[in-house]
C-alpha cells in the first residue's frame, strides 16, 4: 500500500527516480528476450544474435520516458484539480460551438474531395490513393454503426467485405451481372450473413460477439482458400468486369459506343480512375447520409441507448436483440457494398486481401477516429492509408503503431481523438425550441 499523500504534494526527485528505475527494470526484463536476443537463420541452422546497444537504448528511453510522462501527468492532474474547483458551466456552450466547427470542417473536406480528381486529373497515383482512402472511409463508416453507435465489438468486419467482393465477382463472372445490379444484391447477401452470424451471438454478452466475429472472419478466409471450385481457391477470381457509366464502358475502342466516343473525348485511362473515385465518393456519402438519418430515427436512438446501458433498455421494454441485430446487419451490408466496389476496382480478388490484419486496420480507423464520429473516421483513414505510402519504414511499423495507439487512446480518451459526439437530443435552455 503506498503512503497516503495529498494530491497537491508532488513526489520528491528521489521518488521519481525510484519509479523510473522500476520501469527501466521491467523494460530490461521485457527487452532481453525480444530486443536483446534474436535468432537468425545462418547456413541452415539458427544462430543467436545479440543487440545489446539497442536494448540499452530501449531501457534508457523507458527510463527517461517514464520520468517525463510521470512529470507531465502530475502537472496535468494538478491543473485539472484547479480547474475542477471553478466548475465549468460553460461546457454545454463549448460543445455546441465545437459541433459547428466540426460541421464546417466536414463541409470543407467534402469540397476538397469533390475537386481533388479535377485538380489532379493527370496524376493517377493521387487519385488511386484517394480512392483507397475512400474505401476505408466507407468500411469505417459501416463498422462505426456496429462499434461506435451500437457498442458491439466486431473483429471480423473484413468477412462481410469479402462476402460482398466475392458475391459481385461470382455474379458478374458466372452470371453476367453488371456492377449496378450486383451492388444492392451483394450488399443484401452480406447483410444476410450478418443476420445469420449475429442471431446466435448477439443474445449473449458483448465479449462473445468479438470472438465469434473473429472466428467467422477466419472461417470465411479458410473456406475461400480451400473451396477451389467455388472461389478459385488461393488464385482468386480474375477479370472481374469494371463498372460502366450508364452502360458505357471505359475501353479504348469497341463496336458499341464507349464513354470516350459517346462524349466525343479522346480515350484516356484516367477517365476510369476518376469515375471510380466518384463512384466510391457517392457510395460513401450515401452511407454517411443514411447513417446520419438513421441516428435520428427510433432505431438509431435505440442503438445508442443499448450501447450506453443495456440493462436499462431491457427494463424499459426495448427489444435489445433486435436493435443490436439491425445495427450488425446494417454494418455487414455496408461492408458488403464496399467489397463490391473493391472487387470492381481491382478486377481481381483473392483471399489474401481479406486477412485479419484488414479487420484490425478498419477497427483501428474507427477507434482512432473516435467511435461514433463520422469525420474522425475520415481523418483516421487518411492517416492510416498515407502512413505506409510515406516510406517503407512507416509501412513496417504501421501495425505496431496502430496497436500501441489503440491502447493509448483507450487509456487516455476512450471516446477517440475526435470524441466529440453530438447528442442527438438536448435540453434546450432557450425553452423548447427544436434544433
Amino acid at each position: 500500500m503506498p503512503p497516503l499523500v495529498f494530491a497537491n504534494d508532488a513526489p520528491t526527485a528521489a521518488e521519481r527516480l525510484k519509479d523510473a528505475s522500476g520501469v527501466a527494470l521491467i523494460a530490461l526484463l521485457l527487452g532481453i528476450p525480444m530486443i536483446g536476443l534474436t535468432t537468425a537463420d545462418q547456413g541452415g541452422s539458427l544462430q543467436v544474435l545479440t543487440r545489446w546497444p539497442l536494448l540499452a537504448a530501449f531501457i534508457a528511453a523507458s527510463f527517461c520516458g517514464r520520468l517525463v510522462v510521470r512529470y507531465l501527468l502530475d502537472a496535468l492532474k494538478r491543473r485539472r484539480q484547479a480547474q475542477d474547483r471553478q466548475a465549468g458551466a460553460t461546457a454545454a456552450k463549448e460543445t455546441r460551438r465545437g459541433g459547428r466547427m466540426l460541421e464546417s470542417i466536414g463541409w470543407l473536406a467534402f469540397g476538397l474531395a469533390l475537386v481533388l480528381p479535377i485538380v489532379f486529373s493527370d496524376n493517377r497515383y493521387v487519385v488511386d490513393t484517394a480512392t483507397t482512402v475512400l474505401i476505408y472511409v466507407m468500411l469505417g463508416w459501416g463498422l462505426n454503426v456496429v462499434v461506435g453507435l451500437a457498442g458491439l465489438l466486431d473483429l471480423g468486419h473484413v468477412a462481410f467485405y469479402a462476402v460482398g467482393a466475392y458475391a459481385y465477382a461470382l455474379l458478374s463472372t458466372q452470371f453476367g451481372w453488371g456492377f449496378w445490379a450486383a451492388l444492392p444484391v451483394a450488399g443484401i447477401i452480406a447483410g444476410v450473413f450478418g443476420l445469420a452470424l449475429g442471431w446466435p451471438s448477439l443474445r449473449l454478452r458483448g465479449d462473445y460477439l468479438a470472438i465469434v466475429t473473429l472466428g467467422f472472419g477466419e472461417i470465411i478466409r479458410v473456406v475461400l482458400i480451400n473451396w477451389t471450385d467455388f472461389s478459385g481457391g488461393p488464385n482468386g477470381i480474375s477479370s472481374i468486369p469494371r463498372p460502366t457509366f450508364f452502360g458505357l464502358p471505359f475501353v479504348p475502342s469497341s463496336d458499341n459506343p464507349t464513354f470516350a466516343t459517346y462524349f466525343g473525348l479522346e480515350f484516356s485511362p484516367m477517365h476510369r480512375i476518376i469515375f471510380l473515385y466518384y463512384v466510391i465518393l457517392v457510395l460513401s456519402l450515401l452511407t454517411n447520409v443514411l447513417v446520419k438519418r438513421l441516428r435520428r430515427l427510433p432505431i438509431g436512438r435505440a442503438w445508442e441507448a443499448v450501447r450506453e446501458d443495456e440493462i436499462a433498455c431491457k427494463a424499459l421494454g426495448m427489444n435489445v436483440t433486435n436493435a443490436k441485430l439491425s445495427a450488425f446487419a446494417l454494418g455487414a451490408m455496408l461492408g458488403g457494398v464496399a467489397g463490391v466496389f473493391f472487387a470492381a476496382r481491382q478486377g481481381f480478388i483473392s483471399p489474401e486481401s481479406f486477412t485479419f490484419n484488414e479487420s484490425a486496420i478498419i477497427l483501428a480507423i474507427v477507434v482512432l477516429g473516435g467511435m461514433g464520429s463520422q469525420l474522425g473516421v475520415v481523418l483516421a483513414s487518411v492517416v492510416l492509408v498515407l502512413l505506409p505510402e510515406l516510406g517503407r519504414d512507416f509501412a513496417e511499423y504501421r501495425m505496431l503503431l496502430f496497436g500501441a495507439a489503440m491502447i493509448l487512446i483507450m487509456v487516455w480518451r476512450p471516446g477517440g481523438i475526435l470524441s466529440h459526439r453530438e447528442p442527438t437530443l438536448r435540453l434546450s435552455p432557450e425553452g423548447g425550441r427544436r434544433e
Partner: protein
Amino acid sequence: MALALQQLINGLTLGAVYGLIAIGYTMVYGIIGMINFAHGDIYMVSAFIAVTGFTLLAAFGVSSVPFALVVVLIVAVLFTSVYGWAVERLAYRPLRGSTRLAPLISAIGMSIFLQNMVQLTQGARVKPIPPMLTGGIDIYETAEFTVRIAYSQMLIVLVTVGLMIGFSWLITRTSFGRQQRACEQDRTMTALLGINVDRTISLTFMLGAALAAVAGVMVTVYYGVVDFYIGFVAGIKAFTAAVLGGVGSLPGAMLGGLIIGLIEAFWSSYLSAEYKDVATFSILILVLMFRPSGLLGRPEVEKV
C-alpha cells in the same frame, strides 16, 4: 482402429496444450470479466523465448535434453510472466471501471502490438529448431500401421497433468488461491477485507502467462517450428475450449481443451485437414447458441 488410437493420442496432446492456454483465459475472465485477447500472443512470445533459449543452450554446447528443457522452461516462464504482468499493467489496469468496450479494444490493440513487435524484432520467417525429443514407444502394431506415443507427447501430457495438480492445489488450498477466488466473487468486498486486489489481479495474469509459457515451450519442442502468427489461431481455439468448458471454470477449461484437441485430431484425419479450423469455430458458435454457460459453467446472471 489403429488410426483412431493414434489420433486419440495426438488429440490428447493437442488438447493438453489448448487446455493450458485456456486456463489463462478462464482465470482472467473469472477475475475481471474480460477476454484477454493478447493471451494467445503471450503464448507466442513464450514460444519465441523457447527457440532463443534452445539455440543459445546449443551454442554453449549443452547436449543434455532434460537439462535444456528444464532451463528453458524456467527461463520462459519467468520472462513470459513479466510480459503477462506488463500487459495487464499497461493495457487493462488503467481501464478498470471504464466502459465494457474499452478494455476489449485495448486488448485487441495489445494483441496487434505484440504480434507486430515479435515480427519486427524476431523476423517474419518461420523459425525451425532441430528436433530434440525424437523417438517414442510403439504400443500397438498392425501390418500397415504402427501406433506410437512420441516422447514429446508423453512429456506434454505428463507436464500438463503435473501442472494441473499443482495448480488446483494453488487455487483451492493456498492463501493466494483464496484471495483469487474472493476477487472473482466480489472485488469491492475483497478490497474492504484488506486484500490487495490489484496485486491479486496482477498475479492472476502472471499465472495465466506462466501456463501459456509452458504451453509455448511444449509446442516448440513438439512441432519444432514457430512463427509470429501461431498465437492468433491457438488463442481462438483455446478460447473456444474455455467457452466449451464453461468460462470461469478451471476444470472446464481443461476438459474443453481436451475435447477441442480430440475433435481437431479426428476431424483432420477422417474428414478434412483443411477445414479443421472451421470445425473448431463452428463448435464455438454452436456452443454459444445452445449452451452458453458451457459444459461445467454456471449460468451467468447479470445484475444491475
